[in-house]
């Protein structure tokens, strides 16, 4: 019986392929993709303001609601945070990725690699929680500032408009630090991969032709590593756009996209508006991905 089935499948590779593909394609193509379509369809319904009932007929009302000043503020706030986090991650990731790719010897390299992989995979929520402890008013950071007699500086920073707040654990600055921390590994790995592909002979040639190390770095290494930076930025940007945990835990009352979506579908039961709102980060990411492809990021993934 087994033998017969095996021969049957071996002689008909197309049927074998169909057998292999059917379960995963059913799961992701029907269950998951279907769910995405339901979401899309939902975004064309609307919530009747008076009765509080979802009206299931085609309308662009939920989309129109996206353009209220309050919502535009939310989008702007989230996108600027994503951009700031991306730039900061790139700056921090570069030296680490460079050391991993070019400098570290065989014994140290696996250790550094692990020190990037462990935070990447270990509990995201707990790592956010750790910062709640660190940034608390009476926590580690305040203690460091006090110990250096710089308590006034911390107070001055927290008094700043927009980025400040009552304590670092409830401020935009704190949120920024935590975002950079949680997404940093996603930036390190693509940059490291891109740097490892830079041929050593190019660097030697550059040196032989009289370029100083700084010049070689600026004119050879950096341009060749740039697609890696763009590839990493896809993750840091997209992850920040869609997150609602960090703003909920460290933010004040001004919403981010994720929180707005969450509250619309939850407390107010306005699934159509929540659905329409999720198209915003998706649209931003589509544009972002198109630009990234132009910059050669997909070869660096």
């Amino acid at each position, binding site marked *: 019986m087994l033998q017969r089935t095996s021969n049957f499948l071996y002689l008909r590779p197309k049927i074998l392929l169909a057998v292999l593909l059917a379960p995963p394609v059913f799961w992701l193509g029907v269950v998951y993709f279907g769910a995405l379509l339901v979401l899309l369809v939902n975004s064309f319904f609307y919530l009747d303001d008076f009765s509080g009932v979802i009206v299931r007929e085609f309308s662009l009302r939920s989309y129109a609601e996206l353009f209220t000043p309050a919502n535009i503020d939310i989008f702007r706030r989230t996108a600027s945070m994503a951009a700031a986090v991306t730039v900061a991650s790139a700056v921090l990731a570069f030296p680490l990725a460079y050391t991993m790719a070019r400098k570290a010897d065989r014994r140290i390299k696996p250790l550094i690699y692990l020190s990037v992989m462990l935070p990447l995979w270990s509990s995201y929520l*707990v790592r956010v929680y750790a910062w709640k402890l660190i940034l608390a008013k009476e926590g580690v950071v305040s203690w460091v500032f006090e110990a250096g007699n710089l308590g006034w500086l911390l107070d001055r920073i927290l008094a700043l408009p927009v980025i400040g707040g009552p304590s670092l654990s409830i401020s935009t600055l704190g949120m920024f630090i935590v975002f950079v921390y949680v997404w940093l590994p996603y930036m390190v790995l693509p940059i490291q991969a891109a740097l490892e592909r830079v041929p050593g002979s190019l660097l030697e040639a550059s040196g032989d032709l009289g370029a100083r190390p700084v010049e070689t770095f600026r004119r050879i290494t950096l341009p060749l590593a740039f697609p890696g930076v763009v590839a990493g930025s896809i993750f840091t940007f997209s992850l920040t756009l869609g997150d609602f945990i960090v703003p909920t835990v460290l933010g004040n009352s001004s919403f981010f996209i994720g929180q707005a979506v969450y509250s619309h579908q939850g407390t107010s039961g306005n699934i159509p508006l929540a659905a329409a709102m999720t198209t915003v980060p998706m649209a931003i990411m589509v544009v972002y991905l198109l630009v990234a492809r132009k910059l050669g990021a997909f070869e660096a993934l």
Partner: protein
Amino acid sequence: MIDRLQSRLLGGATLLVILFLNMPVWIIGLYAFTTEEAAFTFPLPGLTTRWFGVAISRADFWEAFGLSVRVATVATLIALVLGTLASAAVARTRFYGREAVSFLLVLPIALPGIVTGIALRSAVGLFDLPFSYWTIVVGHATFCVVVVYNNAIARFRRTSWSLVEASMDLGANGFQTFRYVLLPQLGTALLAGGMLAFALSFDEVIVTTFTAGQQSTLPIWIFSQLTRPRDRPVTNVVALFVILITAIPILLANRLTESGEQNLEK
């Protein structure tokens, strides 16, 4: 001279970034022992191990932990089956729609978690299904597939196909070839992928907030403590526990991937 200075600077910057990446987890380890109940004072006012006992005696903690383990186990098993099938199909054959399949697999982690979460929620709502253990599992399995798939396909690409042909030539049928030739080759990659999938599922909170009904998984329990802190010392202990539970599979997976690839190179 300048070179040495630069290399010092680079080394210093690297060290600082590594510290930044890893120090917060040590802080969690430290706070699990604090004597304080209502604040996060540093340096710790005193050390105690009594919160471990308190955490262990908490029924809500064990309930959440049990649910998380059951969800992660079943989601991982589903992901293992689906991920292996998909990678076997995509690795060896070219067919119409191949790109679409690999795109479909990556979609659940490429899209922001809220999109996946709310999409599943509105689909569940549309069919009036009850939110239950199974809706959580479906959500988790969806994004775990890609982890297994990535690990398996990398191994498939490095496995030489002549082994399979030799096995067939020697009279083994397709199932025997899979069992005795392909599976041992894939073994460590699947184990590594499965462990990462387990860690991913065990820790997931965003999709879960949308697909869970009244039950809470361990991350949801922690999240509720984060927004409305009631039991800070117990949360500290649970946080440390979660870090350890997820770190073990990650370290093992790392080890397995390395040793698996060394075997292939021999």
